[in-house]
């Protein structure tokens, strides 16, 4: 037995799975050095991963256009002081959209602060999605109603919640799965390790989706991990793993669809690493020029996931100028509605601070509520 057979079925592809070349041509030559064996490599992954249906790809395109426009709108709202802060996912739209398109409405999503675009792509009310960042409450939507957990800030903690939810779904006899989004930096936290291990031991129907956008705020991937790729982290848990070109929507959607099928059909957890890039700063409050050069950013803008999908769809005759225009018009309308609704100052009620600490307030909280009431009713000096 070779030293490798043991890990067979766990190890990811040696280079990221890709369906669309950077110039948008189908099955184009993948990233540099290993061009030589791409034929075989393509065949290999082509075997494992089926390209999504054409209409789904066109739908994905429209959502990407809308998502990017929403992202731009949100950034604009920070400049107008309408949002306290906004973490842009520009450049990661292939991941954001594919992540939600791979899921059914009854599957659960565990997103991070980075994933607003994924949430609007899933159909959540954009204003409810922005509630957290506008600062009127910590979560604006009803998680159970949309099967989306509150956007998680403490890194990696959501991955183990996803395992718990997956176990709950399995025990309830639902064939739904849970998918946790996480960033490259988050994979360094202990909770990520515990989540992978729990999921593997319990064989939970859960997918871990790592958006490797190469930075954790200012810290580059090289200081985050010395692994051949983050996807290799699955091997040590007995978790099937894959890496994919995160700016190739066709590839991301194809691999995530397989991952979800694998989990749904009882194969256990699946780890997917998507190689992408955070085009903007960490948030509007960050200044990325302090830690990376424009040339690097430019290189990644050249591999823009939206442009790639558009070229690909046009090349395959699935999209034309009219279709592109229609998508952009819809996005403009959507953004305008968001802007208008966000311009209305939200109602906030200070007494609500006491309402949700417990199902019923303790005597202590009732006293404190009364104290605040007295303060607020006192005549202003």
């Amino acid at each position: 037995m070779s030293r490798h057979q043991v890990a067979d079925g766990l190890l990811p592809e040696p280079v990221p799975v890709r369906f669309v070349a950077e110039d948008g041509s189908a099955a184009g030559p993948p990233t540099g050095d290993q061009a030589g064996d791409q034929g075989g490599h393509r065949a290999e992954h082509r075997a494992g991963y089926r390209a999504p249906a054409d209409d789904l790809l066109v739908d994905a395109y429209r959502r990407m256009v809308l998502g990017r426009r929403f992202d731009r709108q949100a950034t604009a709202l920070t400049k107008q002081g309408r949002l306290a802060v906004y973490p842009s996912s520009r450049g990661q739209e292939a991941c954001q959209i594919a992540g939600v398109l791979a899921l059914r409405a009854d599957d659960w999503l565990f997103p991070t602060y980075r994933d607003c675009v994924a949430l609007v792509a899933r159909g959540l009310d954009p204003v409810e999605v922005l509630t957290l960042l506008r600062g009127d409450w910590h979560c604006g939507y009803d998680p159970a109603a949309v099967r989306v957990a509150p956007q998680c800030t403490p890194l990696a903690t959501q991955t183990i919640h996803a395992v718990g939810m997956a176990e709950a779904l399995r025990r309830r006899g639902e064939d739904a799965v849970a998918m946790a989004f996480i960033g490259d930096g988050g994979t360094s936290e202990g909770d990520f390790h515990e989540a992978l291990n729990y999921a593997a031991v319990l064989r939970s129907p859960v997918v871990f989706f790592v958006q490797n956008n190469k930075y954790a705020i200012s810290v580059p991937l090289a200081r985050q991990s010395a692994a051949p790729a983050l996807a290799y982290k699955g091997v040590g848990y007995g978790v099937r793993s894959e890496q994919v070109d995160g700016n190739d929507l066709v590839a991301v959607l194809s691999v995530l669809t397989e991952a979800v099928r694998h989990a749904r059909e009882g194969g256990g957890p699946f780890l997917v690493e998507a190689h992408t890039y955070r085009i903007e700063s960490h948030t509007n409050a960050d200044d990325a020029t302090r830690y990376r050069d424009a040339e690097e950013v430019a290189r990644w803008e050249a591999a823009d996931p939206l442009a790639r999908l558009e070229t690909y769809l046009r090349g395959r005759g699935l999209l034309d100028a009219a279709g592109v225009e229609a998508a952009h018009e819809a996005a403009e309308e959507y953004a305008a509605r968001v802007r208008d609704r966000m311009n209305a100052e939200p109602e906030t009620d200070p007494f609500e601070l006491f309402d949700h600490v417990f199902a019923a307030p303790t005597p202590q909280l009732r006293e404190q509520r009364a104290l605040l009431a007295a303060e607020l009713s006192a005549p202003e000096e």
Partner: protein
Amino acid sequence: MRTSASTSMSMGQALNAALRDAMREDERVLVFGEDVGPLGGVFRVTDGLTREFGEERCFDTPLAESGIVGLAVGMAMGGFRPVVEMQFDAFAYPAFEQIVSHVAKTRNRTRGLLSLPMVIRIPFAGGIGGVEHHCDSSEAYYAHTPGLKVVTPATVEDAYWLLRDAIADPDPVIFMEPKRLYWSKSSFTPGERRAPGFGRAVVRRAGSDATLVAYGPGVPVALQAAEAAAAEGRSLEVVDLRTIVPFDDESVMASVRRTGRCVVIQEAQGFAGVGAEIAARVQERCFHSLAAPVLRVTGFDIPYPPPKLEHSHLPDVDRVLDTVDRLQFDDRPDVLHLRREEAAS
């Protein structure tokens, strides 16, 4: 073990009965943690649960406390009622972020749309000759965290009913089990409930000269001290808090207003502990009824000692009595006494 007829049982057995009865009554109740399955937990509190309810409802997890609590959070979101065990107090610390940032805050975060009905059982405090990390009194960390209910039984009956209440509660409960009382026995009938619910302290012994406020492992010490004081003709009232959060101001203040003096007993290191909160509250609310400052009897501000030295650290009857002696009892009628009587009448 039958749990309907009146039997003499230990606190550990009462906790076991509470888990079993809750699991029988509610399919959604699950038990998991380290060694809680076939072994039945290192203190045997989960003994027999896997046998009766199967692997799906009582199981061993991989060895990771943040994972245990995080898994419970996800399962509670998914409609279950997990009851998890942290093997010892100090081994709950790896789960601190999950507890403070998620367990305590999820209901509030979601405006009550997502609640987390779950119980985290923590065998805590010392007095059993345990080595380092096995005897921490960690209740203050949780009591200081908004969104957590913090409960600790001092009697066999309370162990049963408070755990039943904790499991039935719509909110997360940190259930602190005083290790050294696991083997304390008394006869009780799960069928007939006498114990009050959350947020209600109980006067374990009536007295008129001073009030001893205690909880969990401190209650037996307080009762022994009251017994000894009685022999010296001093009448001490003993109040058992039972739940630290919510706190029963009414019962505690009523007692202190009656007696005019108060000593708070807490095994944990004193600085910024639960006892500090109690002392602060009592003097805030009963200032003019107090004939003397509210004094605290606590462990020292040191890491928990090695087994051979724990007796020097733990608040004992002598330390309580010495403190009671410092409550400025004297015969001269003094304004404060008068004020106290006014207040009382």
